[in-house]
């Protein structure tokens, strides 16, 4: 399940809703991303998240479907905010539930790694020096690459 919204979310309420009445779930893993007050050594006053309505939902749904294909999940949820956020604000939530904790951990990490490189969001940071578009990070590309499948899964592998 995925949601794209301007409003804040409540991680506890989302975790509870995902697991309520479910006794087949052994473990629930959540990741909550929070706006930091520093970008390198520059103090951040605020951040605005631009996104591409329609494509965002489509890309998140595809990433969520891929996680559910790869791991035996009982439930999964991605919530991503857009609009103006302040340091300390929640920005993204990923929740995964599975009978086995390894699957829940792997799927949660996969979801946040992949959405960081695939979901069409762009951060505009406001510092004392002005507003700057955040640059994509090599770290994030490396993190996403961890989850690339071996050649057998690639569509063109048979050629």
């Amino acid at each position, binding site marked *: 399940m995925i949601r794209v919204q301007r409003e804040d979310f409540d991680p506890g309420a989302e975790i509870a809703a995902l697991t309520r009445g479910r006794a087949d779930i052994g473990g629930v893993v959540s990741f909550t*991303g929070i706006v930091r007050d520093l970008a390198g050594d520059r103090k951040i006053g605020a951040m605005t*998240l*631009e*996104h*591409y309505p*329609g*494509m965002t939902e*489509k*890309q998140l749904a595809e990433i969520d479907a891929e996680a559910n294909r790869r791991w035996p999940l009982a439930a999964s949820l991605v919530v*991503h905010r857009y609009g103006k956020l302040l340091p300390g604000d929640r*920005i*993204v939530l990923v929740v995964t539930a599975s009978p086995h904790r390894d699957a829940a951990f792997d799927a949660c990490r996969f979801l*946040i790694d992949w*959405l*960081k*490189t*695939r*979901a*069409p*969001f*762009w*951060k*505009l940071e406001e510092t004392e020096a002005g507003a700057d*578009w*955040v*640059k*994509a*990070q090599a770290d*994030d590309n490396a993190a996403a690459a961890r989850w690339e499948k071996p050649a057998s899964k690639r569509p063109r592998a048979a050629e």
Partner: protein
Amino acid sequence: MKVLYFAWLRTRVGHAEDAIDLPKNVTDVRGLIEVLRAKGPNYATALKDLNTVRVAVNHDYVKLDHSLKPTDEVALFPPVTGG
């Protein structure tokens, strides 16, 4: 054809959206980008380095050799930075 710009591509171009009539000899994304670059220095600057430009057609990522139809929604934007 609807062409959308996001983030610094939008600010460099100066607006969020164009309606482009694709010349008959232009059939793919690479050709569309050449057409846009010729529209003015704002476009030429925004689209100078294609290493920093991502392309989506109808909400899916595509490469520069992707074929275009007049009804496509094309989006040009920098590498994403959400999460």
